[in-house]
């Protein structure tokens, strides 16, 4: 059950990308995703692909992990591509009955597929190389300027940390309960939709109960250790910007500047 879950999973490592400040990585990923939607030329896409490949190589993450993340989206990617190929008006290159594939369609469809793949690859790269704790720390720090405007940055980050922390725990728990019920002859796999949904009750009730129990215990344990919200809280893990961060930001700036130049030319 907990196998094959790649999206949002952290893969520990010591690469340059792993060691970048989480804020750098979050910012670069955000800028990259935004710029992806502004690209409109082959050269632009080529640059974006090179940039992604560079980050991937530096991160030393096996390609298989990114492929695993992209696979569930493959249907969507192929579908958008096919729709674009046939529905974009332009110079016909191939006919299938009343359907006409156009040159323009092939180009837009291809670009869209590349854009989606890069989008998933780069965001997965962020979560694969950044531990959930670092990620939320970085996010909290980045959201800090908005606190005076009423944004509960610390609370959001804490909720995210706890949620991320408990995903594997809950999956493990679900697997355990599922096995216990299977040992009592429960069948989660066969029957129609209604039967299968009903079969989930022996799994969901204990899972809810244990989640509430866990929440209770966690709240108690946090208070027992003096937690009282974000105000005046110091940090054990200090975020520090190093030479690698400056370099990464510089490279990204050059990349973005290049793309803007391409776009305006």
């Amino acid at each position, binding site marked *: 059950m907990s196998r094959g879950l790649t999206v949002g999973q952290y893969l520990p490592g010591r690469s340059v990308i792993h060691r970048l400040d989480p804020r750098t990585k979050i910012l670069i990923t955000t800028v990259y995703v935004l710029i992806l939607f502004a690209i409109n030329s082959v050269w632009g896409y080529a640059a974006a692909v090179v940039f992604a490949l560079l980050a991937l190589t530096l991160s030393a993450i096996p390609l298989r992990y990114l492929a695993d993340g992209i696979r569930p989206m493959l249907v969507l990617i192929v579908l958008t591509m096919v729709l674009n190929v046939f529905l974009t008006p332009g110079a016909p290159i191939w006919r299938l009955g009343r359907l006409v594939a156009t040159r323009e369609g092939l180009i837009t469809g291809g670009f869209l597929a590349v854009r989606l793949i890069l989008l998933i690859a780069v965001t997965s790269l962020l979560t694969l190389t950044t531990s959930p704790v670092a990620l939320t720390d970085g996010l909290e720090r980045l959201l800090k300027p908005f606190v005076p405007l009423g944004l509960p940055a610390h609370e959001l980050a804490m909720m995210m940390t706890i949620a991320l922390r408990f995903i594997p725990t809950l999956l493990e728990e679900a697997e355990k309960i599922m096995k216990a019920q299977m*040992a*009592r*002859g429960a069948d989660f796999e066969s029957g129609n939709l209604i039967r299968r949904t009903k079969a989930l009750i022996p799994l969901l009730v204990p899972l809810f*109960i244990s989640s509430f129990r866990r929440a209770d215990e966690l709240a108690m344990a946090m208070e027992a250790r003096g937690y009282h919200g974000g105000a005046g809280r110091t940090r054990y893990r200090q975020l520090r910007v190093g030479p690698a961060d400056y370099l990464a930001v510089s490279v990204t700036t050059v990349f973005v500047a290049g793309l803007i130049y391409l776009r305006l030319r």
Partner: protein
Amino acid sequence: MPVTVSRVSHVYLENTPFEARALSDVDLEVADGEFVGIIGPTGSGKSTLIQVIDGLIRPTSGRVVVDGLDLSIKANLREVRRRVGLIFQYPEHQLFEETVAADVAFGPRNLGLAEGEVAERVDEALRLVGLDPEEIGPRSPFALSGGQMRRVAIAGVLAMRPRLLILDEPAAGLDPRGREEILGYVRRLHRTLRQTVILVSHHMEDVARLADRVVVMHGGRVVMDGPTKDVFAAGDRLRALGLRLPAVTELMQRLKERGWPVAADALTVEEAARRIIEAAGRLDRGSVDRRAPTGGGAR
């Protein structure tokens, strides 16, 4: 119910950085009517092994045959789970129904039994764990005490009348009285109904008292397998594996080291007491050197 595990290995999350080998070339035979204790430090593969026997984990390699059914055949899995009763650690975490009776009935209903038969089994199973079906049956399982919840959960498995009962730390987290009660029921099932039992436990005393045979696991392998007395007689070897002896056995072995004329294989307090009284009697009659017991031994 006979179980044959031959050359079974299992690797979790194979081909990922999280890969973990849980079992390596495990061989195990359990005969009909036997009471086998499995001990071993945390992470030695005990839990994986019992789940393999119940067909909940399909091992990476090797063969498992339970009651003549080969578990490599997928169609046999369900049948094996019907015949094997597996009680996980903290089984009360799996309770979900509105009433105790309905929860205990979950297993028998999954077996496809008629309602009359189901009700009969629910009564029987609750009585087996010392609960009154009339009184406890209609109550919510979540309104019971921890020990009672544990017993209801165990009844939920017993109601399926498994021919092999596997228990993983059935007494964990209970007070001494709750522990005695639960283990008493297990012992009775074995003695009176000739139930085949596999008991996984960290609690050496329980294993020593109940099991006819002990299997010691370490690093995913079976490192010792033999009659309970023989296994616990090898104190040094168990200690080297990070395990300890039952307190009474430890006591007897130390007495012997100090020169007491006792046999060191006692596994229960009663047995140990008898041995010590015998030895004391012999000492009083002056049949051995009186200085020995006070002379100070290795420790």
